[in-house]
């Protein structure tokens, strides 16, 4: 039986798991909640425990953008080199990208509830860009599932994949301009004084996120590759069956 794991990916997978355990420790135990004393009133202010969400939110948002960057690179390679390999990479990366973009929206929303006092904030360009990215991603994945031969699908998806990045940039620019123009409430992240350990944890979470992305990408890619191989073997079979029609006097 074919499996998608190898010695390297197992090592990578275990490292990600161990890293995740370490991140949980860092995020919930080692680092402090964001609590400060207001100089004037003497009240406790800050983000309190909600700040711990950034150790998930920031890496998933980062991976979402990185994943679609990889999709764009893969799409370009499909068009330039007619490479099936890159088509599978682009597709695998987009699936992870859609997942992480969705997670980034959800975690952002959960964080926004206590901090901004709202689940959704129209005044934040990052939110809107991420939302449109998520929708464009769903469109891209829908296009990947359309009918056609492998080459046809690869070519079509590659064009949509390249356009996706172009569209994200256009949306980002226009939303930013729109917000400044509309005098929406501007997003303000309370300028927390980031401590060394908090900073390290954030940095660590991003590295871990990229490692997890790589791990998932490799597995998803190998799975897609096996599916493609299966189609190949399927072709030999189909050819054999097709040729047998000739001796049996046509299909029944």
């Amino acid at each position, binding site marked *: 039986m074919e499996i998608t794991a190898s010695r390297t990916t197992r090592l990578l997978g275990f490292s990600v798991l161990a890293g995740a355990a370490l991140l949980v420790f860092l995020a919930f135990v080692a680092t402090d909640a964001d609590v400060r004393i207001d100089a004037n009133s003497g009240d406790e202010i800050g983000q309190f425990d909600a700040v711990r969400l950034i150790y998930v939110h920031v890496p998933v948002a980062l991976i979402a953008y990185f994943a679609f960057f990889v999709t764009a690179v893969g799409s370009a390679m499909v*068009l330039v080199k007619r490479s099936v390999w890159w088509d599978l990479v682009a597709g695998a990366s987009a699936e992870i990208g859609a997942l992480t973009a969705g997670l980034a929206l959800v975690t952002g929303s959960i964080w926004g509830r206590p901090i901004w006092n709202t689940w959704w904030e129209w005044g934040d360009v990052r939110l809107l860009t991420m939302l*449109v990215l998520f*929708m*464009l991603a*769903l*469109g891209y994945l*829908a*296009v990947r599932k*359309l*009918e*056609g*031969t492998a*080459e*046809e699908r690869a*070519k*079509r998806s590659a*064009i*949509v994949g390249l*356009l996706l990045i*172009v*569209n994200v940039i*256009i*949306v980002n*620019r*226009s*939303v930013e*301009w*729109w917000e400044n*123009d*509309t005098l929406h409430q501007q997003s303000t992240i309370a300028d927390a004084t980031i401590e060394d350990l908090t900073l390290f944890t954030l940095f660590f979470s991003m590295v871990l996120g990229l490692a997890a992305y790589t791990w998932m990408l490799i597995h998803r890619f190998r799975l897609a590759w096996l599916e493609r191989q299966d189609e190949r073997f399927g072709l030999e079979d189909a050819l054999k069956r097709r040729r047998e029609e000739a001796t049996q006097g046509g299909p029944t």
Partner: protein
Amino acid sequence: MFAEIVLIAAKDLRIEWRSRVSLNQVAPFAVLILVLFGFALDADRATLSNFTPGLYWVAILLASILAVHRSVGVEAGEGAREGLLLSGLRPASVFLGKTAALIVQLLVVAIALLGGVVLLYEASIEEPALLVVSLIGAVLGVGAAGTLYGAILGGQRARETVLPILLLPVLSPVLIGATRSFGAAMGTVAADGWAWTGALFGFAALYLALGVVSHGILMEEN
């Protein structure tokens, strides 16, 4: 090349003139959306005239989905797509020709809808020049992007359901820009309408270029 573009555009417009799909179905659909907004917003005059630009452009975008379907459907029916391939026309000409025809049809719909908002929402037009130029810029962008994404889906059976989720997010910048420009032209918001109009033309130019470049790859079946 120019002759080819005119040939394709004239063909699509002639077909439209015969069948009147845009005129008799798409334009009424767009006006119907305005009426529905009127019901949904409790026919509150102040609200309606305040939000006229946004409601107008949402109606246009939804109507444009139908227009794109029709534009693609014309080729999908009796295998004309293959006829175009067999006749040796340049794919870029086909793209530009079909885009031009779609733009003309959308302009007709847009003008009908303009009458609709003036009548139904009592929209007042303070800056007609800005209104007209921004309308052209926005429709150019919708036409170019619509034709490109229509070609991506081609004769696919899933086209009807995939086109909206594919095209509408892409057109969201057009919605923002056109709404701002119209808001400025109608005096409902204080925005730099001309700057937004410039952005609309930029979007249109980008999508025309992208369509010209990619249509050759898309027209070939495999």
